């Protein structure tokens, strides 16, 4: 085996020498056996992380808002956005499952500065604790506890939880799976109480109105919001890249050869992390049979769990927003106006008027739950990503264990978050907000390009993506970067 870049070695190495797969400039990957795929496809995988991260304000607020302003027909753009993300997810999984490496290491194999770009972008975009505010504010509506207090307590609790856990992945997968399950059944129950047949059918049929673009959206006020909403349909920013780390830790594919990340208290039990990933023998038919099994498993995860849950939650929230707007015309004005907390409060009031104050409270409960899911997922993912890049690419970092680096980034972001919540702007300094929004969307276009390079140059031919998959990912790159720059040049505004 050999890559197009580096000659030499290959599977027919001299007897006694280890067979390796050379990819890019980093250490070659030794050939190991691919484990058997899970025998039954219904087992839930690490997609729960992606769902927890992805089902956020985009689904519960931004899209319902667009539907109220432009009508349900605009939802076809959501369909495109989420479907594109499902394909991105499958392609991220291709590299992670074939090598046990994160996509960051894949990027470094192509060209190291690309990886450093993601390292810096992650810090710039994700250290601001603004994402806590919506959930904590909803909790304040229910309990009266000031949101800053809730947010700070939540930050410390998250830190303690992840530091004490034996194997962080297992703990988090179980917690998130239960919370998401509760979110899905709960929103379904509430939508069943306040929604109507008409709301639901227009929401669903609106998704197939392909090509509809209202003229009212082609201006400096709305175009950036629409672009932002498409980019934030499902997981946004670097969330898809972190998914490769969760896949590896769940033991999917060749990730099974990499030790699991442990909480700080159990860092001593962590096995030594190998310097690089592994590759399986793609010329062996038995190995290829197992590979196809893994691909089936991850496809099921991508389509039914990721795509399905994201769709269900947004459909439910859109139905909720429509019925709230009908019950109280003020809701429509507030939602259109863009004041998120006032709009959410008005929606809650509308439900309270329709089905008793209980329903209004339940609505806030779900917003708080979405906030909690996102916070748990985001803190873990950020720390995981930074620890991974530091461990493998910062000189001297291997003196520490991966668990120590994870704990360092986790507590750093927590302490910084508490300081900012109390003394600074939660979303980041006003002056750099545009830069952060730009970087977040730019990262999405950039990872599409990285995926094309990594999967087509760093993997052996038999497991490279098909032409149509490359076409979709290429479309993704053009779509995200094109919309971003069009918005910037035509209207002078980045995404909102």
């Amino acid at each position, binding site marked *: 085996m050999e890559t197009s870049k580096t000659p030499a070695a290959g599977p027919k190495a001299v007897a006694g020498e*280890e067979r390796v797969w050379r990819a890019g400039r980093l250490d070659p990957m030794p050939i190991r056996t691919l484990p058997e795929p*899970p025998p039954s496809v219904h087992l839930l995988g690490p997609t729960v992380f992606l769902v927890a991260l992805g089902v956020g304000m985009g689904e519960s607020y931004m899209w319902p808002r667009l539907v109220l302003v432009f009508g349900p027909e605009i939802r076809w753009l959501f369909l495109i956005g989420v479907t594109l993300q499902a394909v991105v997810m499958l392609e991220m999984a291709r590299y992670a499952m074939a090598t046990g490496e994160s996509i960051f290491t894949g990027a470094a194999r192509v060209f190291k500065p690309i990886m450093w770009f993601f390292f810096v972008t992650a810090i710039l975009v994700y250290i601001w604790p603004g994402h806590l505010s919506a959930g904590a504010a909803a909790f304040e509506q229910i309990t009266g506890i000031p949101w800053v207090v809730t947010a700070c307590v939540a930050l410390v609790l998250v830190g303690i939880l992840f530091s004490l856990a034996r194997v962080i992945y297992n703990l988090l997968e*179980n917690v998130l799976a239960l919370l998401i399950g509760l979110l899905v059944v709960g929103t*379904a129950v509430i939508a*069943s109480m306040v929604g109507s047949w008409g709301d639901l059918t227009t929401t669903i049929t609106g998704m197939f109105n392909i090509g509809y673009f209202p003229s009212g959206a082609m201006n400096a006020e709305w175009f950036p919001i629409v672009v932002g909403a498409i980019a934030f349909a499902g997981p946004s920013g670097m969330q898809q890249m972190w998914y490769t780390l969760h896949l590896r830790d769940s033991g999917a594919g060749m990730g099974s*050869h990499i030790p699991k990340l442990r909480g700080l208290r159990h860092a001593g039990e962590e096995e030594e992390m190998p310097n690089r990933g592994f590759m399986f023998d793609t010329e062996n038919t038995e190995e290829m049979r197992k590979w196809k099994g893994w691909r089936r498993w991850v496809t099921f995860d991508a389509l039914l769990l990721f795509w399905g849950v994201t769709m269900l939650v947004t459909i439910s929230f859109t139905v909720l927003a429509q019925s709230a707007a009908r019950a109280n015309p003020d809701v429509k004005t507030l939602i259109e106006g863009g004041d998120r907390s006032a709009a959410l409060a008005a929606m809650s009031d509308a439900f309270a008027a329709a089905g008793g104050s209980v329903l209004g409270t339940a609505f806030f*409960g779900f917003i708080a739950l979405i906030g909690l899911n996102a916070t748990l997922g985001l803190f873990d993912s950020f720390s995981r990503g930074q620890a991974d890049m530091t461990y493998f690419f910062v000189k001297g970092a291997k003196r520490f264990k991966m668990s120590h680096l994870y704990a360092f980034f986790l507590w750093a972001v927590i302490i910084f978050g508490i300081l900012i919540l109390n003394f600074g702007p939660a979303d980041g300094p006003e002056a750099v907000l545009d830069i952060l929004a730009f970087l977040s969307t730019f990262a999405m276009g950039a990872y599409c390009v990285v995926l094309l390079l990594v999967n087509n140059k760093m993997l052996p031919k038999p497991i490279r993506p098909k032409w149509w998959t490359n076409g979709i990912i290429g479309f993704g790159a053009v779509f995200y970067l094109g919309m971003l720059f069009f918005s910037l040049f035509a209207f002078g505004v980045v995404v909102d």
Partner: protein
Amino acid sequence: MTVPNRGAARVRELAEVSRPGFAVGFLAGSVAGLMALIVGQPIGWAMVSALALGLPLGLLGAVYSVLIALGKVRLGGFAPACLFWLIGFPLSRLSQEVLTRLVLTGELGGPPDVLGFLAYQGLISAGFAFGFLWMHERLAPRWWHRMSGQNPTALRVYDRYASHARVMWEAREARKRRREASKAR
């Protein structure tokens, strides 16, 4: 005398097996009621909201657990759960509407357009089925494992999950061995 005893034991056995489904259904249905308690609504109000939907969803959830335990429904299958709740969810919501009206106003009646109401609930049921299955698959195997010592039905259904887990465990052991071998090399 032995026959009724055996019957009672069987009922107890199935009741134990049915608890995960009951818990998930009841929890989902009574979320609104539980929230009412948090914000200090009158207890009577909260109880009506919790029970009127929580109870029927809980009972149907229990039936679903029993169907799985008896092997009538495929483990973790989405389609059977969807079909089950396509009927069960609208009926639960209808009973909630009727019950709440009865308790709070003393009048007997349902929603104005019953057919439209049921059709809408039927569509929403797919979302509910998904969430229900998701949570059920997380809770039920653990519960059945705990019960498997004294409950033969729980033991049988747990065995089906366990045989699956054994395959996974063997794969993990094999991975460990491979890792150690590669270290030694």
